[in-house]
C-alpha cells in the first residue's frame, strides 16, 4: 500500500536558521497529492501546504515545498525558523483525489530555541 516516510522524529534548531523537514513517499499511482499538516501544542492539525503538480514550488506562511515525482519527495522548507514554528509536522499522501483516503507519516516534532 501507500506509505509516507518522515526520517526525523525530532528536529531542534536555533531561531533564524533554515528549516528542512524531509518527506518521501511510496505509491504505485502516478498522480499523488501531497500535503503538509501542522499541529501546535494543544491544537488540532491544520493544513499548511498541498501540491499536485510535479516540480512546482508551493508556498504558504513562509514555508515552501516542491513535489518531485522523480525522487518521490515533498520536503518542507523555510529560510529562517521562528519560535512560533515549534510544532508537530505531518506529511500526507492521497494517491487519487476522489478516494478520500489520506496516509500520514509518523510526524516530525520541530523545536525552535532562542
Amino acid at each position: 500500500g501507500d506509505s509516507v516516510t518522515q526520517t526525523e522524529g525530532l528536529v531542534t534548531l536555533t531561531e533564524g536558521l533554515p528549516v528542512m523537514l524531509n518527506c518521501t513517499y511510496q505509491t504505485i499511482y502516478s498522480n499523488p497529492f501531497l500535503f503538509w499538516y501542522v499541529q501546535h501544542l494543544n491544537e488540532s492539525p491544520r493544513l499548511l501546504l498541498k501540491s499536485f503538480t510535479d516540480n512546482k514550488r508551493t508556498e504558504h506562511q513562509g514555508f515552501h515545498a516542491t513535489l518531485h515525482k522523480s525522487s518521490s519527495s515533498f520536503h518542507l522548507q523555510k529560510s529562517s525558523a521562528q519560535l512560533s514554528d515549534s510544532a508537530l509536522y505531518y506529511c500526507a499522501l492521497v494517491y487519487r483525489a476522489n478516494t478520500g483516503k489520506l496516509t500520514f507519516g509518523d510526524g516530525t516534532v520541530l523545536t525552535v530555541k532562542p
Partner: protein
Amino acid sequence: GGIITQTPKFLIGQEGQKLTLKCQQNFNHDTMYWYRQDSGKGLRLIYYSITENDLQKGDLSEGYDASREKKSSFSLTVTSAQKNEMAVFLCASSSGLGNRIRSRQNTLYFGAGTRLSVL
C-alpha cells in the same frame, strides 16, 4: 466557516468496555474520518465515510466499529477497550477530494479530539 465538535473531550473506560465517541460537523462536508493519534506513530486512519451511510475501513479498523448516521455525524465505537490504552482520537471532515487542488476541497478539517484512557 464551520466547526467539528467531538464528544466527549475525555473518556475514561474500563478494560473490555464498549466505548462510543461522537463527531458532528456543520461544514456540510461529504467525507468524514476517524484517526487515531499515538506519540511517534503519526495519524492512523481507522474508518472513513465518503457520504451518508457509507463506511470504508482504514488501516487500523480492527477493534473498532463506525457509523455514519447522517451527513453531519460520524461515530466511532471501541468494541473492547484494552487495558492501559491511551490515545487521542481525531475526527476530521472534507468536502470531497475532487480534482481541483486549488479549491478548498482536498483539505481536512480536524476536531479537537477525544482523549481516551483505559484503566
